[in-house]
């Protein structure tokens, strides 16, 4: 018997009991829809996270003053003022695996333009920072070396600051006041979006590091910096660069073996690894939910197929009497079960994708519906049909034709 015929017979059998077929599929429909929707939302989430991590820049090492290990009465990290601009210069000069480095300072301040004012973060940064963070200006120019050396009173605005102080106007060339000191806006930075910690990275004003140290800081150590951002030459050199920085700074700060260093380093690939791990855990959870719902759906299919075999015993007897082989009967009931789960799977895929789109629309949360997840869901629903359809189909094929013909 050819497959087309088997397919037609199965389709007719399903059509004869439309309502029952639909109810039988429901388990698979819900299971597959849930899987598709959750995978879409989940991969949307990990896309957002990877975008945010990428927004920091690649191959980055963060050096901050103080120790991360809380020993005795030490202050928390960043609490001391031990890192200086000289350290940055030394790292750039003496660590071969380091591509660029920039010191930064950070303070919160009111920025005033005309009668508008906006409380924001004012960061001091070297020109290198904008290369490290791959953060160009959209208008005007970025901070240059001459701004650094001269301690020029110029600044770059993040998008959020520009919008809040200038509305639609072009801020370039205008004068703003930071801590009552007038600064000329030389450029507006490209939009960067949220950081992995959830803060708005565009709510920042950048001034040359030297200017921040000399004009804005009230510190008695004008050479000190809040943090150092270092970019390694490549991903492979990330760990090596970190090692070189540690050795150099230990030497410069006279940290002998056994003494706790007065700085700490953080490698951004560690953050990446954590994010990866949590997305792995997420997909494991999704897989578990998917398996359970599909097993439940599959048991429903098996149940109904067993009922169907009993109900159609006489039909099976007729088919056997006029020449159906065991395999023909087996295949017919398997086809029915697989057709049930595949149709259910397709409906589930549509519902799941639709649901994910609605969620992403309402929550403004990106969702990614991958061809991969659709293919997996489709074949998985087929596999459920094969697995749970086999036992009822074998029962049908094993019937004795005489008994089956006599069945009332």
């Amino acid at each position, binding site marked *: 018997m050819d497959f087309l015929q088997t397919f037609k017979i199965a389709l*007719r059998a399903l059509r*004869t009991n439309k309502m029952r077929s639909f109810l039988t599929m429901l388990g698979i429909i819900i299971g597959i829809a849930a899987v598709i929707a959750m995978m879409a939302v989940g991969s949307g989430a990990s896309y957002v996270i990877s975008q945010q991590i990428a927004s920091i820049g690649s191959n980055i090492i963060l050096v901050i003053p103080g120790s991360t290990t809380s020993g005795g009465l030490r202050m928390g990290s960043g609490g001391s003022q031990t890192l200086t601009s000289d350290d940055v210069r030394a790292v750039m000069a003496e660590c071969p695996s380091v591509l660029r480095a920039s010191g930064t300072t950070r303070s919160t301040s009111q920025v005033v333009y005309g009668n508008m004012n906006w409380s924001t973060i004012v960061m001091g940064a070297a020109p290198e920072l904008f290369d490290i963070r791959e953060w160009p200006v959209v208008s005007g120019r970025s901070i240059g070396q001459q701004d650094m050396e001269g301690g020029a009173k110029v600044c770059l605005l993040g998008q959020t600051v520009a919008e809040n102080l200038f509305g639609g106007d072009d801020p370039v060339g205008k004068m703003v006041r930071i801590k009552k000191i007038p600064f000329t806006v030389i450029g507006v930075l490209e939009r960067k979006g949220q950081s992995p910690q959830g803060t708005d990275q565009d709510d920042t004003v950048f001034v040359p590091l030297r200017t921040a140290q000399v004009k804005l800081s009230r510190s008695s150590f004008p050479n000190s910096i809040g943090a150092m951002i270092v970019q390694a030459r490549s991903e492979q050199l990330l760990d090596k660069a970190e090692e070189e920085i540690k050795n150099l700074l230990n030497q410069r700060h006279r940290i002998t073996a056994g003494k706790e260093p007065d700085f700490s380093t953080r490698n951004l690939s560690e953050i990446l690894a954590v994010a990866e791990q949590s997305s792995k855990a997420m997909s494991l959870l999704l897989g578990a939910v998917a398996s359970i719902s599909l097993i439940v759906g599959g048991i429903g299919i098996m149940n109904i197929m067993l009922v169907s075999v009993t109900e159609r015993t006489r039909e099976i007897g007729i088919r056997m*009497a006029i*020449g159906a*082989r065991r395999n023909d009967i087996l295949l017919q009931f398997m086809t029915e079960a697989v057709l049930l789960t595949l149709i259910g799977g397709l409906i589930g895929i549509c519902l799941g994708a639709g649901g994910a789109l609605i969620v992403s629309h309402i929550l403004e949360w990106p969702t990614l519906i991958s061809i991969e997840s659709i293919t997996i869901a489709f074949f998985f629903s087929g596999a459920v049909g094969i697995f749970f359809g086999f036992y009822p189909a074998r029962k049908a094929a094993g019937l004795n034709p005489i008994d089956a013909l006599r069945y009332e």
Partner: protein
Amino acid sequence: MSTVISLSDIRRVFIMGDQQFEALKGVSFSIESGEFVAIMGASGSGKSTCMNILGCLDRPTSGDYLLDGLGVANMNQDQLAEIRNRKLGFVFQGFNLLARTPAVENVELPLVYAGRSSRERRARAMAALEQVGLQGKEYNHTSQLSGGQQQRVAIARALVNDPAVILADEPTGNLDSTTSDEIMNLFTSLNRQGITIIMVTHEADVAAYAGRRITFRDGRIIDDTRG
């Protein structure tokens, strides 16, 4: 004339728990091509048991069965299915048609399992339905047909694969006497066209249509008369 069926010393023992029952106690006969045979006998005498063996639906406990020259007694289930499909046509007392299925598709069914193309199936099924006088009813669902018409569909289904023998177990058992006569006239005309028919019946007037009557009692043949 060639021999279509040859049974020699067929025994069939049913085992139910620790009880045994010998429904056929050494049955032997042969049937030539083109014969019309009625099998008669009291209830429980073993007629249906014998028909099931003839129809390759059941296997004898011992004895030899040659169908169209083939020894079928020791064939496996799938081989028997193929024999049923190619060499036999069945007509049952209860019609045994597929419900909610058009007449023509019921008739096509043996050809489906024979792997014929859909065009050939349709053509042969239409011809078989015409042969049994059901022109115009081809696309009616079986539930829309009368008992006599349903039995005609069953006969068309039995005919469609050009079988060596048509086996009918009480084909008129569910029909009134007028319809029975119509069905028997159909059988007679098919037999005149050369088709071999073996039919079980309780009724003497139905058996009168056949050219040969074999009578069973307690699992044995007690009478075999022609004419």
